[in-house]
């Protein structure tokens, strides 16, 4: 076990965590501020990935694909809220779970009808396919570093927006007390619609960026949704800062655990036992972390103030 490998795995964990944050940022606001259980957030990832992939394939230009897909995911999120979600705010959580689970099935089938069941082929342009030596003799892919940078920029942007701008103040006010905020003359409904659409866009952006790394296929967002739910629970529902820290934590624990646990086990047990126990424990590690956090901080690490 060398320190360069550990550093590389930390980068891998960061990249996975940042991707999760982009998905969880919207989800935590939707659940925290609107008190709405939205399970179809993974579909937003898929819509983003498909929009970018389809446009990239049609125009043969990766950057254009991403630039065009961002407004598409925003409009999709906006329309989804306007057509369906706003009618469900007043319902109880069970109705919301059922309705949004139905949306998952709807989106997956719609994509299957539109693009076929096979995965779409996408790759990033050759200009991004190089490597940067993060340490001597430790090359790291440029594209993955780019994902980390874009994610960090988004995180910074969201933070500044929520904490420093007037609209951000309205968002926070709407989260603490929607009735009072509405009474002060702020149109909470429109505000929520834009938060929803922005959340969809960030999730879509995550899909656009991981599309060239993984396969763009129906149902690709669901495994990410589950991890995102873990992230927002650990981070504290409604807290963007909590989501950021929890996402990085989950990314690191999942990635580093997957590689290191079997190696660690091999130092004190037989190879075949380690091969069985290592991966088993690694796939549980994220949920064990969640359980531990919930025991000590039942509302998550950074519950929003006044909630």
């Amino acid at each position, binding site marked *: 076990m*060398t320190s*360069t*490998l550990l550093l*590389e*795995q930390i980068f*891998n*964990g960061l*990249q*996975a965590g940042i991707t999760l944050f982009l998905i969880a940022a919207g989800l935590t606001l939707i659940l925290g501020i609107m008190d709405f259980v939205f399970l179809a957030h993974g579909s937003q990832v898929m819509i983003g990935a498909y929009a970018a992939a389809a446009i990239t394939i049609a125009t043969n230009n990766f950057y254009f694909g991403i630039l065009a897909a961002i407004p598409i995911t925003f409009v999709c999120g906006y329309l989804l809220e306007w057509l369906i979600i706003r009618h469900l705010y007043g319902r109880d959580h069970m109705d919301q779970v059922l309705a949004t689970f139905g949306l998952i099935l709807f989106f997956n089938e719609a994509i*299957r009808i539109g693009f*076929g*069941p*096979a*995965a*779409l*082929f996408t*790759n*990033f342009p050759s200009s991004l*396919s190089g*490597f940067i030596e993060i340490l001597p003799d430790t*090359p790291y*892919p440029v*594209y*993955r570093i780019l994902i980390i940078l874009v994610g960090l920029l988004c995180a910074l942007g969201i933070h500044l927006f929520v904490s420093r701008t007037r609209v951000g103040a309205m968002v926070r006010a709407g989260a603490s007390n929607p009735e009072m905020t509405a009474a002060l003359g702020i149109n909470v409904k429109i505000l929520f619609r834009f938060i929803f659409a922005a959340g969809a866009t960030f999730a879509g952006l995550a899909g656009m960026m*991981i599309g060239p*790394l*993984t*396969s763009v*296929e*129906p*149902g*690709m967002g669901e*495994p990410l949704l589950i991890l995102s739910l873990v992230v927002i629970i650990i981070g504290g529902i409604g807290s963007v800062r909590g989501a950021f820290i929890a996402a990085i934590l989950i990314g690191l624990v999942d*990635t*580093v655990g*997957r*590689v290191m646990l*079997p*190696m660690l086990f091999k130092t004190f047990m037989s*190879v075949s036992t380690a*091969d*069985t126990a*290592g*991966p*088993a424990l*690694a*796939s549980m590690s994220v949920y064990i972390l969640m359980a531990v956090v919930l025991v000590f901080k039942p509302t998550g690490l950074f519950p929003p103030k006044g909630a």
Partner: protein
Amino acid sequence: MKNKFITAVIAAGFVASAGMAFAETIKVGYITTLSGGAGIIGKQMKNAVELAMEHKGGKLGGMDAEVIFVDDQRKPDVTKQLANKLLKSEKVDVIGGIIWSNLLMAIHKQVTRADTLLISSNAGPSPVAGSNCHKNFFSMSWQNDQTPEAMGAYMNTAGVKSVYAMAPNYQAGKDMIEGFKRFYDGEVVGEVYTKLGQTDFQAELSALRAAKPPATFIFQPGGMGINFVKQWKQAGMDDVSKLYTVFSVDGISLPALKETALGTISTQTWSPDLDNAINKRFVADYKSKFGGYPSFYAAQAYDTILALDHAVAKTGSKDTAKMREVLAAGGIPTTRGSLKMNTNHFPIQNFYLREAVKDSDGVVTSKIIDTVFEDHGDAYAQDCKF
């Protein structure tokens, strides 16, 4: 007047049913996965079965035939219910299909004990090849261990001294590595089990880069294969290690991998370029009808129908015992040539080394570059007593 009319209708009914009794119909229940992420595999198999029926003029061995497709949703409980329905209410004569080993295990006893032929178009778990075998079961594919066995044998001849093995953490993943190790003589320096359904392998690739093995053997079926091979190439791993694959680079993943897959090698019992008349017709017609190369899943589904056609044509009946006798004798005309049958009703066949290449139209497909095993039987046949 009214009575006369009714009598006439009844009489007509009798005549019609008498006529029906003359022209027997063989009913085939075909179970495959048509929904969900693996739906693409089932779609290809359904396409191939329909193509085979078209090639045979809608008949099997000259007998009127009906194929009923059902979607197992990749769930054992659903598959069990479907098999029950096909046996009891549809009263099918044969059940075919089945992609997944766990689904086959779920219905194996139920179908074979109902004195109905069960023909697997893909799954080949070891229990049904060995001690739990049944005379009413036939495989039109292979036993799970055989394909990695072939890769192990090939790597010996290629002089690969040590290898790093990687497979998803579930039964088939472990079976594949077991099969591989049965024939591979070199050292296995690493055995890594990834999460089933994993999409990002960057962490494993980083560890692999640090381990610097001269060769890497992987089994990553379906979408996992697409992700793995893509990320392998993106990470420039070809400079670190040579990649050897089974069931990871095929007609399902190649359209999503395209040029990225070029040069990747794998072992398989079938390839679109296998040179025989049946295969040429199958591949050409499949491509023109469905726009794209068939996968080995499709070829095996096509062969399942050819086997039934062969059995009915030889016996002139759909009687289970008679058809069983014909199939057990082997010599079944398939896309893999005349197929021999082992004592446990699994094929004895060649295993080829395939490479991902571009065809004359610039489409990425696989091509046979060597024959690893000739007439290779599986390791479990000796344990099988009917």
